[in-house]
């Protein structure tokens, strides 16, 4: 943001104090969410999420790979976010790299759980084909096409939608393969198995401006933030990841009630998102 004048800053802060933001929303209401799935035919699953003016695309590609020796029965998932210069002229060349590494690590922290794989949104052991030999490697790619604040939540929602749209081909392992080296695997391209994405958490970012915190902040509001906490919560209400980004210190009690507020908000968001995904899947079938 090229920098707001003092008048604009006090206008935004004042609005938030009276629970009436510049675009008329309340402190805890979201901008209109619009989800579209299956937009990248060559990917195993893809989705595009528009959250107000923020527009992101997520694509999931599954490729065969060798599991990590220390976790032979689990597949591998890697998340990489790319900020396109179309969103912000300063993302040109290597400008957007710092933000994309930050977003990638925040997403990995929220969606993939601990190193042992427990608490991951996706059940990694379902990705394993032959223990220790062959497994599915999921490459999740995010692209920020247009950014008007709250990019992390939009990416979280896009990845959740893309995973629910993902179709992993069924795999047969030819039995006679000699034990040690790679067994041949033929991939059938008719029947696919869907992912159960109920466990995938949704990310809610609470931005603290002045005395209060708001949800789904636009770029102007984000420029006024003193600090921000992104919490990822799954359907069971358990917290799968938390990142307090930058800025002024927060009292521990403030963080705790921010978490409870996030849990409350995440239920509505979860239902809204699931209905949008179902609608998108429906119109997706109708098209293909």
């Amino acid at each position, binding site marked *: 943001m090229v920098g707001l004048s003092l008048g604009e800053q006090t206008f935004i802060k004042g609005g938030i104090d009276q629970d009436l933001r510049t675009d008329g929303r309340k402190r805890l209401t979201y901008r209109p969410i619009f989800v579209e799935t299956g*937009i*990248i*035919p*060559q*990917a195993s699953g*893809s989705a595009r999420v528009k959250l107000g*003016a923020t*527009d992101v*695309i997520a*694509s999931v*590609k599954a*490729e065969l790979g060798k599991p990590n020796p220390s976790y032979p029965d689990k597949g591998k998932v890697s998340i*990489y976010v*790319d900020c*396109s*210069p*179309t*969103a*912000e*002229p300063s993302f*040109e*060349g*290597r400008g957007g790299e710092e933000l994309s590494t930050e977003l990638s690590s925040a997403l990995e922290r929220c969606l993939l759980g601990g190193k042992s794989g427990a608490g991951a949104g996706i059940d990694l052991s379902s990705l394993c084909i032959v223990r220790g030999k062959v497994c599915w490697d999921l*490459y999740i*790619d995010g*692209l920020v*096409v*247009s*950014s*008007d604040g709250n990019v992390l939540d939009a990416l979280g929602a896009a990845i959740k939608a893309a995973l629910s749209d993902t179709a992993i081909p069924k795999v047969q392992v030819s039995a006679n393969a000699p034990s040690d080296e790679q067994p041949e695997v033929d991939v059938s391209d008719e029947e696919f198995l869907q992912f159960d994405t109920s466990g995938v958490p949704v990310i809610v970012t609470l931005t603290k401006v002045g005395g209060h915190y708001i949800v789904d902040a636009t*770029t102007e509001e984000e420029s006024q933030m003193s600090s921000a906490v992104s919490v990822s919560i799954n359907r069971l209400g358990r917290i799968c990841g938390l990142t307090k980004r930058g800025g002024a210190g927060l009292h521990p009690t403030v963080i705790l009630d921010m978490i409870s507020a996030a849990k409350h908000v995440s239920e509505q968001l979860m239902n809204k998102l699931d209905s949008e995904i179902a609608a998108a899947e429906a119109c997706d079938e109708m098209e293909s």
Partner: protein
Amino acid sequence: MEFVNPEGLRLDGRRPMEMRQLRAEIGVVSKADGSAVFEMGNTKVIAAVYGPREVQNRSQQSNDQALVRCEYSMANFSTGDRMRKPKGDRRSTEISMVIRQTMEACILTHLMPRSQIDIFVQVLQADGGTRSACINAATLALADAGIPMTDIVTSCSAGFLNGTPLLDLNYVEDSAGGPDVTVGILPKLDKVTLLQMDSKLQMETFETVMQLATEGCKAVASYIREVLLENTKQLESRRGV
């Protein structure tokens, strides 16, 4: 590999002279001054234009005309195999330069001295003919940004396989090793601003293939005019004139 079967149909069921399905949408990136999505069949490109705005580094500033800068980047998921190419690899720099030169020719830069116009093109889905799709998307985005241009620039590619000239190649036909002619024209002024070809082709077949590609560009031009007209009507109705 048989690209044109006996009945004269291509792999994806099109006739040799037939374009892929075109689709365009204007104003997709709200924060950009001008933006557009352009789809040619499965190839999908989004373009955003920022400018005319202040020049970032003084050294490149010229005081009699605007500085046009362009960056072409491909999304990681845009091609079949997931490749993580570093940002500034040779192919993207070359295509950025081609797009910059083509658009610079048609923008009236002397009207906006000491300013800078940024054109960012992001390929979402690459299925052959990405260069042409980028130029068409850039033209639409510039028009959306209200930047004065002598004429819109439209581009299309054509090839020559199994003895028949083919219009608007897709990825399979493009990577079949046959010649690939990319033409960029100013339709109203009937001038050619971009002509690129790789691998060998006899002179006379080159004439027909280039003629075919120019026809393709004219078809794209009429479609783009339609879209722009439609968009202006919408702007009018929205402003309640």
